[in-house]
């Protein structure tokens, strides 16, 4: 029986969900060439207050910063409405952006480019880690000491002690640690449906990481242990028993769960020679699954999680729309990209 508080959050999520931009409306904006007209369309959305002039729609930094601010505000709003363990789950889930910033700090420190840290950070952080403090670290040793979250710290320590500071292994360690944290936080909600919603997303993100190991031409066998238990058995075998990227995607296309995303990747691999739609395809697939669960349980926790995932999806597509316009992708091509997750 849901408590009054959790019912309130679900009802608020329904209300907040109405502020999301419908997919087809956002897609139709790809065909608007005039910046002033697009600005007037945005005025009625939550992005409106962040874009003051048509020039803002042509500035990639402003686009990235402002769209991230909208996403951050939305997530923080829902976090403030929830209580543990759902609050912890949403914070842990959103902490992937903290981990992304942490990773960028590590990259900068390893490349001896500490001065570039600030400019390379995502304008979104502070869910679990205090990235502002972490960015002050002078070296990797100090950075590890500054990380307060036990799982993340342990991932960094394992990477430093046994992986020879291989950056691909750092990515795998951080992503799998995040997956484990999300799964743990989801299990703490005591609700299998809630667990299921984010597990789908986490699993697909890890799958993308595993596929990109193939893409990098790495010998994936040595990584399989790190993924065990975090990716479903069939998918794990499909990826880690495959000889190369194409083989792995082809094997995934044979699994009903991943078929649509895998076919999209195979298509881009054949047409462009690169599976560049990987994240888009897997995320789109995961969002579809989240929607289905949320529609089955519209008055329960999965709906709140659906809202968070949907905000993230909208943020991704909104950025693609505006940055696509800036980079000169033609309207119809951008429309296709937003429609099917693929372009030319």
């Amino acid at each position, binding site marked *: 029986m849901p408590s009054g508080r959790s019912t309130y959050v679900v009802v608020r999520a329904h209300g907040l969900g109405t502020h999301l931009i419908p997919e087809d409306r956002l897609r139709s904006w790809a065909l608007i060439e005039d910046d002033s007209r697009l600005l007037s369309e945005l005025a009625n959305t939550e992005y409106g207050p962040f874009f003051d002039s048509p020039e803002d729609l042509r500035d990639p930094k402003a686009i990235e910063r402002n769209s991230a601010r909208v996403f951050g505000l939305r997530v923080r709003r829902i976090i403030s409405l929830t209580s543990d363990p759902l609050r912890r789950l949403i914070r842990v889930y959103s902490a992937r952006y903290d981990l992304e910033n942490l990773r960028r700090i590590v990259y900068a420190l390893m490349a001896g480019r500490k001065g570039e840290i600030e400019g390379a950070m995502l304008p979104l952080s502070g869910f679990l880690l205090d990235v502002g403090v972490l960015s002050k670290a002078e070296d990797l040793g100090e950075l590890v000491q500054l990380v307060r979250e036990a799982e993340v710290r342990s991932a960094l320590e394992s990477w430093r002690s046994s992986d020879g500071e291989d950056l691909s292994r750092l990515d795998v360690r951080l992503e799998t640690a995040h997956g484990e944290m999300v799964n743990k936080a989801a299990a703490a909600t005591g609700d299998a449906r809630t667990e299921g919603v984010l597990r789908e997303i986490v699993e697909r993100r890890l799958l993308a990481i595993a596929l990109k190991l193939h893409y990098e031409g790495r010998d994936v066998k040595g990584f399989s242990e790190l993924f065990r238990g975090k990716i479903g058995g069939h998918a794990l075998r499909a990826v880690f028993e495959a000889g190369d990227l194409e083989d792995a995607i082809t094997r995934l296309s044979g699994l009903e769960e991943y078929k649509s995303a895998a076919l999209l990747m195979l298509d881009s691999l054949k047409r462009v020679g690169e599976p560049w739609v990987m994240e888009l395809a897997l995320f789109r697939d995961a969002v579809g699954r989240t929607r289905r669960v949320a529609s089955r349980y519209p008055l329960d926790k999965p709906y709140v999680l659906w809202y968070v995932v949907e905000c993230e999806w909208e943020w991704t597509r909104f950025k693609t729309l505006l*940055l696509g316009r800036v980079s000169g992708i033609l309207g119809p091509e951008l429309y296709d990209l937003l429609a099917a997750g693929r372009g*030319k």
Partner: protein
Amino acid sequence: MAFKSVGRIVATKGFLIMLRERVGFLRRGVEALKMKRDQLIKEAQGLLPEIRKREKAEARFVEAYEMLRMAFAAAGPGEAKKVALLSRPMKTKMRVRSVIGVEVPEVEVEALEVRTTPSMDAAVIAAARKLADAINEMIRVANVEAKFERIASNLAETMRKVNSLEKLVIPEHEEAIRYIEESLEEEGLEEFLRVKKYRVLKRGE
């Protein structure tokens, strides 16, 4: 008479011998230049299929640019900055090689490393790979084009030399030889007549 390529003419036997030697030398020079010309033509013809690859290299650049646009749209400038943190400048080495005496520049890419990690967006990885491929291909084509350009300009110069030697310098020298031979012959005849006249005059005394 004006023989521009021969210079001042002295109608003496010594000068004639020197001119004949010079013509022999010029003919051997023409032969050598013709051999060089043929070799340069052969080299240039051998480069033609490589030069035709420029179109392919340009198409690769267009493709890479398209992918870069997609990556920019899909991942954004922040992701590009992340990738840039790991990037290192491309290292090239340039040397000059001699092809049949023609100096051609050669640029070699020593290091063009695309450093990627699995957390990077696949679109950005794809764009980086395509761009690196296109740069490599374009540098190969640029090497061939520079070689072809040098060979072609040297070929034109060699052909000009052969033409001017065959059509101007050697004929002028031959003309000069003929002129000196005629002059010497005339001088010989005059001398003969002078001697004959001198004998007649001496006998009449």
